[in-house]
């Protein structure tokens, strides 16, 4: 039997102290929808679990004075869905988070857990990348900020340093004419892992794209920010030629694996198709804003 200690500190400082002191045997617990499955299957046998949900900052959703959002790392998908304005400003981020598992899973699963679990197919990650989210992490050496796309290091690995905890996501204020969307390709409608996931965030003025960001998931060892696809969209009216260039940029960025969910050729093609469909949804929403 594993010797396991469970700690649920009330403050971030205590959590960091306990997490750093326990070293590599320790695991952070947010919603537990990845961690408990890994423990149950015997993949992981942590010696210490640090539950972060009693720390107020970890479960808070805040609208900042400049019109941005700050989301605690352990906020559940269901709590985010119940927020009055978040889904209006960031529909693409919300729809990505709300694709994670069932209603039961959404009652617990957090964007922080989705990112730190390090799956290349994590649904919220491409949407957060497209949103230009910045994360705050804190460890024994203090606080720092990182771009979301810099967090994943490879399947199951992140660039957080030993003892560091993800604290929150900051999403920037939105200029008028902005919106976003997320689509994933799966063989069924619910409860499956993305074959490809695509997040697009756009700002439009008079039908012309003035700013764009594209995130792609499940097509490489980490979620990707596809700058070439964004460049192809910026300055265009999302005409067929611009969309075709952006789709090719997405396909070109792919370094996928062959598995039971999809072949390399299939994932590469679908990445381009999803870009076009996701951009169309984001554009439609942006024009209403």
């Amino acid at each position, binding site marked *: *039997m594993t010797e396991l200690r469970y700690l649920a500190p009330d403050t971030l400082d205590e959590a960091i102290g306990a997490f750093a002191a326990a070293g590599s045997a320790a695991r952070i617990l947010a919603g537990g929808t990845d961690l408990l499955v890994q423990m149950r299957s015997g993949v992981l046998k942590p010696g210490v679990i640090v539950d972060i949900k009693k720390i107020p900052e970890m479960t808070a959703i805040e609208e900042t004075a400049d019109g941005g959002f700050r989301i605690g790392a352990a906020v559940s998908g269901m709590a985010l869905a119940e927020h009055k304005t978040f889904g209006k400003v960031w529909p693409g981020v919300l729809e990505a988070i709300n694709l994670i*598992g069932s*209603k*039961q*899973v959404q*009652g*617990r699963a957090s964007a922080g857990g989705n990112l730190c679990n390090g799956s290349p197919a994590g649904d919220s990650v491409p949407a957060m990348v497209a949103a230009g989210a910045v994360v705050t992490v804190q460890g024994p050496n203090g606080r720092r900020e990182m771009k979301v796309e810099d967090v994943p290091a490879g399947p199951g690995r992140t660039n957080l340093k030993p003892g560091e905890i993800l604290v929150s996501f900051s999403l920037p204020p939105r200029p008028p004419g902005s919106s976003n969307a997320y689509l994933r390709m799966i063989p069924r409608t619910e*409860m499956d892992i993305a074959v490809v996931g695509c997040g697009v965030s756009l700002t439009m003025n008079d039908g012309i794209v003035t700013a764009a960001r594209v995130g792609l998931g499940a097509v490489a060892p980490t979620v990707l920010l596809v700058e070439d696809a964004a460049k192809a969209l910026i300055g265009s009216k999302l005409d067929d030629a611009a969309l075709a260039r952006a789709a090719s940029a997405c396909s070109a960025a792919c370094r996928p694996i062959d598995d039971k969910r999809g072949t390399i050729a299939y994932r590469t093609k679908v990445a381009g198709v999803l870009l076009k469909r996701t951009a169309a949804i984001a554009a439609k929403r942006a024009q209403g804003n």
Partner: protein
Amino acid sequence: MAKVHVTTLINGEPTEFLCEPNDTMLDALRGPLGLTGSKEGCASGDCGACSITLDDRLVCSCLMLAVESEGHEIRTIEGMAQGDRLHPLQQKFLEMAALQCGICTSGMLVASDALLKKNPDPTEEEVRFWLAGNLCRCTGYDKIVRAVMETAAEMRAQ
């Protein structure tokens, strides 16, 4: 290993129990607490047979540590009927034969109850999406969905 002492509220009753730190809430319910209505179908969050609510939010008890219930409020299938009086969903499941073997039923009922509390007038599509995390090998789902829709209509009429 030292057992952990947990104080929580289960179906409205202040409850204390002892558990191992790595026991799931489902282990604690079915073990020391003797509440075996919640079932273990998969122990990995896929089937929903272990559905409970935690502070009124629907969760899988197999994906939660028992120690996490400290200071929170848990509701299980055992809290659904009022004494001998079945909850309208339970009554309707019986009347409309929305169960066969019954393994999925307590999870289906707890999940459907959570839906109707949030949305008393769901569309069929909303019911199906809401119950996507509850697997049933027997009924083919149609009878369950119809029973939920019918219960919702009756509860709205009251």
